[in-house]
């Protein structure tokens, strides 16, 4: 496998009594897309926000390019970290300053990072970024509050791309967009990845899109990472009952199927014994006790209906 760009070990992020993230470990390889899916409130955004240093973590370790991100950084190191790692935030309303124009928001980092020599070059770059996310050049002069939800989200995406980072945490980057623009943005993300060897941590609820964009998928539930594996494996041969339940609830654009949809319900178990990661197939891990894994896993790949 390729080199690791990010290593997360036993990450814990607690808020008072709430264990938002409770001891999760995973690696992200250079050039791949790791999809992060799971229950609402399971700690996906918190994981992303911890990685990009928005929080002091409660426990564990996060390494980016081999360096512990929680270590004290010199201002030069910090600047480089802030350029290399970008986040597209889940909430396009809260994350854009309404008193700034779209152009100002997108070009905000150019100055700090000494990118592009003059105004004209910067304007040109902003125009290109706006077009890349399916907006018009003319939108540069409009204020954030004058845009619709989906348009704002695209400004957030353009801002994240503006500094040409190598690693992007995309927190629900497309859920506010209509499907044709989703397709456009996802194609753009894929194309950029190919050209520039970008790495993505892609947090989303739309499982058909996650499957399409991700090389591997990690499933979170109540602060734990319960299953991780290649997209193919997770979709076709899920082992953890929560993953099965999640996959059974994906709605299809097909009214007749929806009228007769049968979801697989999920009930939390209170297992006895120690929970740990079990490798069920190559590179496919499930968080369970020995007893649970004996029940859930037959040793054969069983296709989910």
């Amino acid at each position: 496998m390729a080199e690791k760009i990010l290593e997360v070990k036993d990450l814990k992020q607690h808020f008072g009594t709430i264990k938002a993230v409770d001891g999760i470990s995973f690696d992200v390889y250079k050039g791949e897309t790791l999809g992060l899916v799971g229950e609402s409130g399971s700690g996906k955004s918190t994981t992303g926000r911890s990685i990009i240093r928005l929080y002091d973590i409660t426990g564990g370790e996060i390494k980016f390019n081999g360096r512990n991100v929680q270590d004290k950084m010199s201002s030069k190191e910090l600047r480089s970290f802030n350029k290399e790692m970008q986040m597209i935030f889940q909430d396009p309303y809260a994350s854009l300053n309404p008193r700034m124009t779209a152009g100002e928001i997108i070009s905000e980092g150019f100055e700090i990072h000494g990118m592009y020599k003059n105004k004209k070059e910067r304007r040109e770059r902003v125009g290109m970024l706006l077009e890349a996310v399916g907006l018009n050049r003319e939108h540069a002069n409009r204020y954030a509050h004058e845009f619709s939800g989906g348009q704002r989200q695209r400004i957030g995406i353009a801002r994240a791309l503006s500094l040409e980072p190598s690693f992007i945490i995309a927190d629900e980057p497309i859920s506010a967009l209509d499907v044709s623009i989703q397709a456009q943005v996802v194609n753009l993300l894929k194309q950029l990845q190919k050209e520039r060897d970008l790495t993505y941590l892609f947090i989303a609820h739309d499982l058909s899109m996650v499957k399409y964009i991700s090389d591997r998928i990690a499933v979170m539930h109540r602060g734990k990472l319960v299953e991780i594996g290649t997209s193919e494996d997770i979709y076709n041969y899920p082992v953890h009952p929560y993953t099965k339940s999640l996959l059974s609830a994906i709605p299809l654009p097909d009214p007749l199927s929806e009228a007769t949809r049968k979801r697989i319900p999920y009930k939390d178990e209170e297992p006895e014994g120690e929970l740990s990661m079990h490798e069920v197939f190559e590179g496919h891990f499930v968080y369970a006790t020995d007893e649970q894994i004996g029940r859930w896993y037959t040793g054969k790949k069983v296709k989910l209906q």
Partner: protein
Amino acid sequence: MGETILEVKNLKINFKTYAGLVQAVRGVDFSLEKGKTLAIVGESGSGKSVTSNAIMKLIPQPPAIYAEGEILFEGKDLVKATEKEMTKIRGNDIAMIFQDPMTALNPTMRVGKQIMEVILKHKKAATKEEAKKRAIELLDEVGIPFPEQRFKQYPHEFSGGMRQRVVIAIALAAEPKILIADEPTTALDVTIQAQILELMKQIQRTSDTSIIFITHDLGVVANVADTVAVMYAGQIVEYGTANEIFYNPKHPYTWGLLGSMPDLDNDADELLRTIPGSPPDLIHPPVGDAFAARNEFALQIDYEQQPPMFQVSETHFAKTWLLHPDAPHVPVPEAVRKRIEGYLEKNDETSIELGKGGE
């Protein structure tokens, strides 16, 4: 046909901006039947939120201008209603779940208290104790674990999807006649989403609630909608029953939408289909069909004149010149047709005929 509870007629909304007058809603017509769900889908920026906020009279004037049209709720024109009348209607008769949950929540007030206030305001409980009990019940119904503890927390202590569920709980607390839900489940995982959709349907059955459901997720539309309106550039371009829109779409924009969704077995190496180009500038909307510039099937007339709504069936309408008797015959694009045929086959459905684009 059932009883109509809300009728929107030729609604036009403009925004005064520094750059010019934005024609956000350009003549929208639809009606909502009692106890039914109308889903509105469409391009981002096409006017879905403005239309629904306009019904609630929740767009600030200025910059917004109600340029034309009527919004008839139980026969009364809300465009002309006073603020005092609207205050009575909001929440009580018509409740709204906003696209942005934080606009609906007070960041400095505990979540439970906010729900209780709505319950007490709309007299759904007599005492504080009762209201508290009901609020906790509602949190539980929208799938929030440990509702008693969560009751005491502030909105920023909730995840994105949990905040959205609080907003849903508040809207449901009022037991409104009409519920307008703007992207209510977008922030939720699919299992909780399914749970919320079931809850909404259950409430609809028991209290005959009418729902306007705005979403980008065509799977969700297929799950909830009785009728579907497809919007583009401030107008409804196709309107029909869910079956008509999903199995017999007529408008090239609808084809584009249905074609852009990835299949669960989409090959990761091929790019997704998209609709080329970008939507028109609503300060200077095109004279002809607003979709023409992006429509691979556009005719000469599309650049010159707006198409009228052509009627396809008693319930199905589409605003495309392709439906004119003299238009050339344009079949549904291959990829969309295959997908639809796949669904019909899977469901053993033979009575629905996948129509052609321009009969």
